[in-house]
């Protein structure tokens, strides 16, 4: 693990707790997907937690964030309430969207989390526009846009890179490169030297780092974010990582070479952060407690979700639009 003066163990331990919370959330989301309690799809962030946590540790509450389909981790890291998120996955009252959005549309505007997204790369163009609003409103916020390595091949993302640089917008693009897009090894459909080279061709400074190294993500994010906040324009971070699970909860990832996922466990971010904390003198029992605490919290939220009421059918007709209020259909 990368070492740094600023990385006091206590601070890192807090981040580690966030990672544990994300991990526990994702495990529970997957289990409840299989149990039929969570419908639709669930894209787990397991194995990538250090990126969201390391970056969001360097954000202010009023900074903004946009995500993609694998958005639970980013939401929790930015400060969204995991209880409300779990209720959302269950489609219940009290969910972040009152049950109307589900896993792929988790959002918490109160902490600047402007939404996961079911359409790849659409968060990118939204982000540059939000950054223009930030400038227009003379705020000193920044916005972080997360995208997968498969998503970088969509045109709107490439347009957004150009756009961000043209207007020198306060955007941090973070490409979470887990090297796969659904069942496709992204190298096979990505020409050239990848996203860092592409970003640089737009004049956007880009760095590629080990995204499973919490301290390194933290330190790199601190630097990039301060550059952006200082008016330096957009930056791109490519964080190399590995998706420990299938594309979504019901994908067994049989397209992977045997042993690949097992081997990757060695480099997974929770284990590595844990090792570092132990080296710093955090005790085994403190770590065990933290894990148990995260799991207990999430277990409680799952129980809460089970007990939460289903939305009233009337809820289907609110939040559509003010003008031309929703017209019921034949189902009502």
């Amino acid at each position, binding site marked *: 693990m990368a070492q740094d003066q600023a990385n006091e163990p206590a601070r890192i331990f807090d981040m580690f707790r966030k990672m544990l919370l994300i991990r526990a959330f994702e495990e529970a989301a997957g289990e409840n997907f299989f149990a039929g309690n969570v419908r639709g799809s669930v894209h787990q962030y397991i194995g990538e937690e250090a990126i969201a946590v390391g970056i969001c540790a360097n954000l202010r509450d009023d900074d903004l964030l946009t995500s993609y389909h694998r958005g639970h981790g980013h939401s929790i890291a930015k400060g969204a309430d995991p209880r409300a998120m779990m209720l959302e996955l269950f489609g219940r009252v009290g969910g972040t969207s009152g049950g109307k959005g589900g896993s792929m549309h988790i959002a918490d505007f109160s902490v600047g989390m402007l939404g996961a997204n079911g359409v790849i790369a659409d968060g990118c163009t939204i982000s540059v526009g939000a950054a223009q609003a930030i400038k227009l*409103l003379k705020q000193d916020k920044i916005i972080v846009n997360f995208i997968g390595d498969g998503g970088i091949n969509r045109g709107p993302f490439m347009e957004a890179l150009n756009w961000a640089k043209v207007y020198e917008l306060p955007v941090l693009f973070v490409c979470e490169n887990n090297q796969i897009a659904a069942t496709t090894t992204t190298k096979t459909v990505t020409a050239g030297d990848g996203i860092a080279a592409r970003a640089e061709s737009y004049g956007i400074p880009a760095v590629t780092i080990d995204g499973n190294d919490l301290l390194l993500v933290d330190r790199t994010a601190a630097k990039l974010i301060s550059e952006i906040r200082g008016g330096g324009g957009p930056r791109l971070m490519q964080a190399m990582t590995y998706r420990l699970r299938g594309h979504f909860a019901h994908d067994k990832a049989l397209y992977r070479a045997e042993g690949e996922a097992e081997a990757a466990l060695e480099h997974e971010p929770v284990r590595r952060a844990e090792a570092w904390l132990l080296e710093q003198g955090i005790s085994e029992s403190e770590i065990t407690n933290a894990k148990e605490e995260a799991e207990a919290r999430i277990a409680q939220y799952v129980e809460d979700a089970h007990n939460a009421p289903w939305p009233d059918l009337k809820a289907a007709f609110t939040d*559509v639009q003010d003008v031309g209020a929703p017209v019921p259909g034949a189902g009502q």
Partner: protein
Amino acid sequence: MSEMTYAQAARLGLKEEMDRDPTVWALGEDLGFEGGMAGQYKDLQAEFGTDRIVDTPISEATIMGAAIGGALAGTRPIAEMRFSDFAMCAVDELVNQAAKARYMFGGQARVPMVARMPIGIRGGIAAQHSQSPEAWYTHVPGLVVVTPATPADNRGLLKAAIRCDDPVVYMEHKGLWGASGEVDEGDVEPLPLGVARTVCKGDDLTIVTWAAMVGVAESAAMTLRAMGISVEVIDLRTLWPWDKDAVFHSVRKTGRLLVVHEAVQIGGFGGEISAEVSEHLFEHLKGPVKRMGGARIPIPFSIPLEEAYMISAEQVAEKARSFF
């Protein structure tokens, strides 16, 4: 009152709203020097600066996406698409993001933006620059659809669209840019969205229409009046929501309805109006609701072919006479 063109009136409305609310801004290609295709943005960049009248790269998806982001982050953007045909490069952003954000996020977000995308034929600009896809957006929950027909409306409705907290698809008709009319500069309030305008009153037949067909219907009505047929022409102004009260009220009186639009007839919004009126006013109808729309062909380039696509006042009058 002063006389101005449809394009000038839009510019006036935009300027008034930009003066009134510093969070209103516009983004699109060639807004600065060119001032928009018809001068709708003329000199506004000089007045409001390049951060509020933003000249963009040729990146329609991002023009639309950025407007959405700008709206989510507390401003009121106007995404200028130049042609509704080009807006098809940004349909995903408009339909999957702008229209749904408020709902998907359970009311946490609002997307107060205007997607400005002119429709219609304007003399030889052919298949990729002449379409009228307004029906599509009426079919998309979350969107408001506005189609102004006069200079005064193009000011008043644009102001309403800008102040609206919902995403508004604002469809000027390119063929009307140069049309002039009276605009009351003193009356600075926006027009209400969803309220039709009765262009002329009549008792025998109701014609419902919008955009460039309003003038055509109006002149057909004059012809018909001379023949003793009294026609009520209703300019819907907004297609979503459409003013069902006004239309139903008129059809209850006349018992006959003709819907006229420039867009392709098949799958056009005339079908929606016809179906609603037929289903709910069946007992009041003296004959079937009829529609007049464009042929199901791409818009041809050659002027006589293009003219063959278009609907004339004579044809409207003839169709109207078929009711009697």
